[in-house]
């Protein structure tokens, strides 16, 4: 200590002084999460005498007599499951404080008072492949068959901010979604579709601002005021670094661009949900249900902080944040996860952020059934899987749902398969009776125990993430990615060992089965796109394009300037996606991920 003190006195540099003070006297108070965990611990009823005596009286003798040796019962989140749950497994004050009623804090049972009686979930099916013309055709087909919201997927070059003419785009154009290289492509995609009447969800992240700007400009050109535009862009860049890995710049740069879009849309596009905080990809990357829940909500609170730092009022932007969860195959675990998500969001916003506005406290989400659980083997089994997963999403209170097509394990879905997937939702909605009563599984001892456990373990993760310096730091250090990779490897080994089952894939296998036929995107899409881009470039006013790009560059270099209007100007001048992205590449550099394995 004496050396430190001496150094401290000798130091003249103020910065140094401040650093030394931090070094010597780190602050230590109990975190919000620690307090929440203690609260949960206190509310537990301790031993469960009913269960214990039943086990001794009836279960154990039975098992002994029948020579039954219990296998390992656990779920993806790694929770050990008992044979049965009783009221004693539920905390004392649970119903009043943590369950509540629909449309009331903490929203565990649903965010709207009348839920599906008032409004069914939106049936939103992903489309987007090949050329913009193909996608336009598919969108019109779905609208004709009763789909109530459009959802567009983009190809890899678009997602990474490359034009179809880039060397790296070769062979990838139109493969996993539709290619958009310039405003022209967006004009084709929405040809003949009234943008004031539809809500459009675009699965786009790193270049989200550019695609949003394109959508807005398409509307403007059709004389539709941008105030009327309804829809969602994903724009959740944190989960890109965590799971989907479709980034362009380092995290701070993307976060800044998202901030600009948040501010612009809050002020100018009131029906546009600018961030869809996505657990879906985190789950698909191999996370457990718990990890999906914890990491996604941690991302959510990060964006809340971002909005606050940008000077936005929480009740003006929190209702515009929506979530996007995965619904996987473990039925109760998924329902519990979705219910827990609502409760955590409400609890934390109220208790940590002091939010009282009801619309901000209610967590809205879109759900998609799991792609990972689909098998290429015996593909019709996938319809059953998707049905179970879709039901879990509805029982979990989702606001919109995408059901996967049975052929998606292998390629982009065929039209017939998409129709079955949509029909699956319609059957759940209109035949099953599931939506008739709100939160019909509420009060199930098992489900309520599981929901509470999900919340508790999420808070434990939050505590750990905070210790690493917050979610951004945890992601930059690769911690979150490592956690997911470890879970995913463990599950793979369990599958190999037959401890987990995938029907048709590792059990009840049909010998000599060949993969089902697939929708192939020919290289024609690429050629057509390349031709269109060339024509766009030859027709535009080059001087004007370069001027808008230069203005954008200056805006990007000025931390407090909002870049969004500049992106709109560049888009309108038919600057291409890659040209616009390259401005950022020049200003911010590109990102290289930390090591995961």
């Amino acid at each position, binding site marked *: 200590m004496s050396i430190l003190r001496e150094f401290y006195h000798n130091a003249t540099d103020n910065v140094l002084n401040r650093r030394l003070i931090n*070094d010597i006297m780190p602050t230590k108070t109990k975190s919000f999460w620690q307090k929440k965990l203690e609260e949960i611990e206190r509310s537990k009823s301790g031993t469960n005498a009913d269960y214990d005596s039943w086990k001794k009286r009836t279960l154990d003798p039975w098992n002994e007599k029948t020579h039954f040796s219990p296998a390992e019962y656990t779920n993806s989140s790694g929770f050990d499951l008992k044979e049965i749950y009783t009221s004693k497994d539920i905390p004392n004050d649970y119903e009043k404080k943590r369950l509540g009623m629909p449309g009331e804090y903490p929203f565990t049972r649903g965010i709207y008072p009348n839920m599906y009686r008032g409004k069914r979930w939106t049936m939103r099916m992903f489309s987007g492949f090949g050329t913009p013309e193909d996608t336009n055709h598919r969108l019109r087909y779905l609208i004709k068959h009763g789909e109530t919201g459009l959802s567009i997927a983009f190809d890899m070059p678009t997602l990474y901010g490359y034009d179809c003419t880039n060397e790296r785009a070769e062979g990838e154009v139109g493969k996993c979604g539709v290619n958009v290289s310039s405003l022209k492509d967006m004009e084709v995609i929405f040809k003949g579709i009234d943008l004031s009447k539809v809500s459009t969800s675009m699965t786009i992240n790193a270049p989200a601002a550019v695609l949003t700007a394109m959508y807005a400009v398409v509307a403007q050109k059709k004389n539709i005021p941008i105030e009327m535009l309804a829809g969602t862009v994903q724009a959740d860049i944190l989960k890109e670094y965590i799971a989907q890995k479709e980034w362009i710049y380092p995290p701070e740069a993307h976060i800044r661009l998202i901030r600009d879009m948040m501010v612009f849309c809050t002020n100018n596009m009131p029906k546009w949900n600018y961030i869809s905080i996505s657990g879906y990809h985190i789950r698909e990357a191999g996370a457990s249900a718990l990890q999906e829940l914890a990491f996604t909500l941690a991302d959510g609170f990060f964006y809340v902080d971002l909005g606050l730092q940008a000077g936005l009022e929480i009740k003006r932007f929190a209702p515009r944040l929506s979530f996007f969860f995965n619904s996987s195959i473990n039925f109760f675990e998924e329902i519990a996860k979705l219910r827990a998500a609502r409760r955590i969001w409400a609890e934390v916003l109220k208790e940590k952020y002091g939010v009282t506005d009801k619309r901000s406290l209610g967590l809205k989400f879109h759900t998609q059934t799991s792609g990972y659980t689909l098998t290429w083997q015996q593909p019709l089994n996938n319809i059953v899987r998707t049905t179970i997963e879709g039901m879990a999403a509805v029982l979990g209170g989702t606001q919109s749902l995408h059901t996967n097509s049975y052929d998606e394990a292998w390629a982009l879905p065929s039209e017939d398969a998409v129709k079955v997937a949509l029909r699956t939702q319609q059957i759940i909605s209109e035949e099953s009776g599931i939506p008739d009563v709100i939160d019909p599984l509420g009060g199930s001892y098992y489900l309520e125990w599981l929901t509470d456990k999900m919340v508790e373990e999420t808070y434990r993760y939050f505590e750990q993430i905070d210790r690493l310096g917050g979610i951004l730091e945890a992601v930059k250090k690769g911690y979150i990615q490592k956690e997911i990779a470890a879970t995913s490897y463990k599950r793979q080994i369990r599958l190999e060992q037959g401890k987990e089952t995938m029907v048709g894939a590792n059990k009840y296998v049909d010998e000599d089965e060949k993969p089902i036929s697939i929708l192939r995107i020919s290289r024609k899409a690429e050629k057509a796109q390349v031709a269109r881009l060339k024509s766009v470039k030859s027709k535009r006013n080059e001087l004007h394009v370069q001027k808008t790009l230069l203005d954008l560059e200056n805006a990007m270099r000025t931390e407090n300037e909002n870049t969004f209007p500049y992106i709109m100007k560049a888009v309108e001048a038919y600057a291409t996606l890659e040209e616009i992205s390259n401005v950022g590449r020049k200003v911010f550099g590109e990102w*290289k991920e930390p090591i995961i394995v």
Partner: protein
Amino acid sequence: MKINEIISGVLRGDKTSISRAISIVEGEPGSKNSRMLMEKIYKNIGNAHIIGITGPPGIGKSTLIGRLSGIITNSGKRVSIVAIDASSPFSGGAFLGNRIRMQESLARNGIFMRSIASRGMEGGLTASIWETVKILDAGGSDYIIVETVGAGQSDIEVVNLAHTVIVVLGPGLGDQIQALKAGIMEIASIFVVNKIDLPGAYIAIKDLQDTLAMSPQKGWKIPVLGVNSLDGTGFDELISSIGAHMDYIQTNDNAKEEIIKKELKVIAMEELRRSFERKMNAFLSDQKNGEILIKGSVNIYQIVDSILHDDKE
């Protein structure tokens, strides 16, 4: 590839040959090919300056190496990197060199990088890395950076081969010094405290300076530098310290002699180890000896003596 092709390729600086030559010394240590290779290239070595870099995991060695190698390459010199990664004690497998490879500057500058798994080798590792370094030297590298995680005894042996040894530490020094094997502090030519932007870094520098002030230093005065590998802060000082240390070695006969002695010791020890291993294996594979061991009629020290002095090979 034939061994003669490989040898002439190495001397030409051909990457494929250099790479294959390394595979030989790494994959069949002490073999006829490996010996011939080393002898043939020996006259062409001695031009490269070898920089050993060690320090605890997570301290940012890879980023530092990425930046350092980029700067040296930009000055027109050829840099190669040898990175040692720990093998899994369970399977013997390993993840190799990934952290350094992540550094953008490597691909951009065409820097040759080779990673080597430690494979739990006792001693053998040092020799094969030494040979790897010599192959790179003969292949025309001006600078060779050898990176290890400063945790085990063999790591110390490895960096000890270097002309300039850089020990990288970070803020919050206490635990790191604990984690480093005793001895690593003694072989440093330069101390670097990375992540100078973080709290605790300045205390770390001060602590190191105080520790050094208490131990007698003759000749080379060990500098303690603060750097930030992410933004390049402090790299000018680092480069000039490496340069100063090179000059020191080149102009100081004692230092030169030390280095040659170290090299001699490594080669000699490795030859001894290999020859003893052969004797040991011969002894163990003789069934009669097994019976003697089990019976316990001969004292274990006497057995060791008789193996050591068994001259027939």
